[in-house]
């Protein structure tokens, strides 16, 4: 123990010298940097094609602007030691929850749900998006602070207690997709922090039971937690032909769009599902399907491989993190990213419930892009401050 304590001090000293210098930047994960650059560039190219024939014109300019803002956030994040988030976790938590309450109180309504706060200049801001990263930072802090008691059932329960408040706040907006992302992040954070398998098993059982209760048992007995259309969207993918012009219309059109893309894609002009607006929300929730229609199997494969590269680097960062907190944060971010990619692309292909989750770095939306930059910025910050030996 003593030796380790000495080591710790030595490391902290090294860190402090590095923070001031350019040397820290040399410790960046350049593969991840390259993957990020390529993904952003590819995403901009893709969204330009997807939105080219929209009535409001291409979103490229907006999206590039957001990407620039995201790059700035990313750069700032590099220079913030993750310990700072850990120390400030309570203010961050309270602030995030407060802003979410504000959204519920006075946010702007769009598509029947309150998710946005209007900013001057016609911009809107979606707190629940930024909240994703902040959520991981806070919950990871709660768990890391009690690392010694991780085997105690109380520790995961306390973390879940912290987590449930934002999850519920997002759920009642209502934004089931984002609430699911939060839940996934919570699960990942618990998992990486070392919660016992038995506890994880019980939690998983409760989660499955809860889902069954909400989607099946309670509606069967006449209590609807979800609005019928929400339930229809969640379960519709299991029977896509049930209501071709109603609940599963989007899904059918989306599958058609993906399939029609074929190996090489139909091009921007030929992609009639997107161009003639058969594919709803093709710039946001269904961007994956639109990309698949325009660029085909090859075009989508490039994006998926870039995502895989990001996830792989993120997991490497988890393994190399300097302390438990950093590892848990990196793990949470990595899994959350993976979850978003999977749910978004799988839903457009009819193998996951339809939820309003954006496709990272592709879907139109400033909050989403900036949040993803922030997430990768935090990952890089962790990587730069990894243990002494270079990996």
């Amino acid at each position, binding site marked *: 123990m003593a030796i*380790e304590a000495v*080591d*710790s001090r030595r490391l902290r000293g090294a860190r402090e010298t590095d923070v001031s210098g350019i040397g820290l930047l040399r410790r960046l994960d350049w593969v991840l940097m390259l993957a990020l650059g390529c993904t952003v560039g590819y995403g901009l190219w893709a969204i330009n094609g997807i939105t080219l024939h929209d009535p409001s014109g291409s979103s490229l300019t907006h999206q590039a602007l957001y990407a620039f803002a995201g790059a700035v956030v990313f750069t700032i994040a590099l220079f913030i030691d993750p*310990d700072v988030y*850990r*120390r400030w976790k309570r203010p961050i938590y309270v602030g995030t929850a407060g802003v979410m309450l504000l959204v519920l109180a006075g946010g702007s309504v769009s598509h029947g749900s309150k998710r946005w706060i209007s900013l001057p200049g016609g911009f809107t801001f979606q707190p629940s998006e930024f909240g994703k990263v902040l959520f991981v930072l806070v919950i990871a802090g709660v768990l*890391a*602070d*009690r690392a*010694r008691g991780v085997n105690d059932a109380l520790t995961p329960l306390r973390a879940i207690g912290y987590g449930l408040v934002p999850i519920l706040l997002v759920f009642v907006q209502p934004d089931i997709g984002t609430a699911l992302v939060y839940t996934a992040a919570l699960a*990942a954070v618990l*998992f*990486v922090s*070392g919660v016992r398998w038995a506890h994880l098993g019980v939690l998983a059982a409760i989660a499955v039971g809860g889902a069954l209760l909400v989607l099946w048992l309670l509606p069967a007995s006449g209590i609807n937690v979800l609005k019928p259309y929400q339930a229809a969207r969640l379960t519709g993918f299991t029977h896509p032909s049930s209501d*071709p*012009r*109603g609940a599963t*219309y989007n899904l059918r059109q989306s*599958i*058609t769009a*993906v*399939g*029609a*893309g*074929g*190996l090489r894609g*139909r091009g921007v002009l030929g992609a*009639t*599902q997107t161009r*003639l*607006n*058969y594919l*709803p929300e093709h710039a946001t929730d269904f961007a994956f399907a639109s990309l*698949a229609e325009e660029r*085909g*199997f090859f075009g*989508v*494969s490039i994006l*998926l491989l870039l995502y*895989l590269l990001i*996830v*792989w680097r993120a*997991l490497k960062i*988890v*393994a190399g*993190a*300097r*302390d*438990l*907190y950093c*590892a848990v944060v990196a793990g949470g971010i*990595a*899994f959350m990213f*993976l979850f978003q*990619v*999977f749910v978004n692309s*799988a839903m457009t*292909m009819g*193998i996951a419930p339809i939820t309003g989750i954006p496709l990272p770095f592709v879907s139109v939306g400033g909050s989403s892009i900036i949040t993803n930059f922030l997430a990768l910025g935090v990952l890089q910050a962790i990587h730069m401050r990894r*243990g002494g030996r270079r990996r």
Partner: protein
Amino acid sequence: MASSRFMPSSNVNEPYLLTPQLAVRVAIIAFLALAVFAVLFLRLWALQVLSGDRYLAQANDNRVRTLRIDAARGAILDRNGDVLVSNVAGTRVELWPADLPKTWPAELRELRALQQVTGVPVRQMLARMKQHGSDPLTPVVVQVGLHQDTIFYLEEHKADFPGVQLAESWLRTYPHQSLAAQVLGYVGEISPQEYKQLQTRGYGATDSIGQAGVESEYDSYLRGVDGSAQLTVDSLGRPKSAAKLEALPKPGDALRLTLDVGLQRAAERALRFGIQTARANGDTHANGGSIVALDPRDGSVLAMASYPTYQPSIFAGRTDPAKLAPLLNETAAERDNHPGLNRAIDVGYPPGSTFKPVTALAAMQEHLLNPYDSIPCTPTFTAYKQVFHNWTPLIDTGMDLQTALAESCDTYFYELGRRFYVLPKYRGHPLQLWARKFGLGESTGIDLSPETKGLIPDPAWRCKTYGGPPCAGYVDRIWKPGYSIQLAIGQGQVLVTPLQMARFYAMIANGGKLVSPHVAEDVELTATSGQPARVLRRFAAQPPATVGVDASALTDVQQGLYEATHASTGTSSGVFGAFPVSIAGKTGSAEKLVRLPGYPNPVNLTQSWWCGYGPYDSPTIVVCALIENGGHGGVAAAPAALKVFEQYFHQTAPITTHASD
């Protein structure tokens, strides 16, 4: 350190090493990530590469709307080229289910708005859509023949009616109104059952199709070939390009009928005249009938009237359910005495005395009768302990065939019936056989449908219909003498159609040849500017078939029929005797049990018949008239038939007296 109070407690700030536990968990997440991407790639491969073509076709179906450009239906002409049916342009409003609002409340709102504009109930539109079932890309026709202001309204408010499409179409128009309605038939939308049958022959799910008469029979010539245009639409059904013409419509060919408009009109007037005459004479239940005029040389139908009748135009355009009901609904049809029914071919009546020439010819052919032998004509005829009455009791004399036909003596023919009954078993049933050879109880093969065969009763039929133990093996036992005796004067269960009778009298007129009655003459290309009409296909009538009746027997019957219209005692001499052209023919008064509305039991009413031809020496026209419940043949049917001859020969003559039977 200044910041030390912000630092976390030291216990968690120990140097962190990758513990084996964390390594395992990271590995699990990594494995999960690989699995997730594998699933995504597999699904993507399945959708895009394995079934890409199918989805590509689906995507194209989504956006391409194939619009039908209606072909003008061919005109229907009479034998002189007078137009019986043609078209006028009309606008069709249709619904594309695929382009309707995606939510039910919005869809209902739109349909309600459409109901307000067109007057077509929402329920009807929904039912139509349901009829076409799963196919959202087949438009549903809501209405054809919109009002001009409705068209303007829909054009102006296009944005409020996604999925509603206006298209040019054609409506049937009838310059002569109800003339020859049952022969012409009408046009309606194809029914799902018809569509199932005709799909393979190029019919579409929303096509119009002839539903009765020649419109139905010759639909394949009249309908033409619809053209098509393709339109690209967006998800709200808004056109994104100008319609691209794929195929020009090819108008249908004109159909020329053998009918003569003038004679047809005369026949229909004559029919109404006959009914009025009957009513004026006390036969107050006279309420329907039929007149058929045939050319005895080739079987072409010159006129075919049936009463009551209807206006075929009620099927064109904005239809009114109340007006259509008598044609489509059994109860309403009964109330209006079945206006859609073609009584000339689709109803069997007992022929009464008009059947006597059949008996006479058959008896002579079977050597049961010498036409010059005298057979007593008495008030009653008794055989097998049964008494059969003559229509008039005021007679008691012997008669030869000619006189018996002229005066329509019943007992003379009862005797012939008895002679047929007593024939030994090996001779079979020659009266029925000859009746069928003359085309009675058999379908005439006319190019109209539906046609009833009528009925010539014989023991086999009785056996099949009434069955019972004595029937098996002892067929002839259930055939009682009365049946043969009644049949000889066209009574009992025998049923014939007016057209069958006209055909039989044509056989008498033309010297023993059975003609094939037909109403269609040819299919032709209508004359356009610069191009004369061109016959595309002539329906060559089947050459008349010789029946095998002896010429001498025919001559005897012909003379009998001439006597009937000219001898002082002839049954219709009062009607035809003074007519400048010599007409020969026979009256008939057939008793039939008729079910009348308001009467609990069927009533025995007399059906008034007259069948005959002229000119006597070289006949060119046969007329057969039937007035339902019209009383004696000479009272109602014969004067009606005279009206047709008057129009045909452009001659008139006063009716001197009303004769009987």
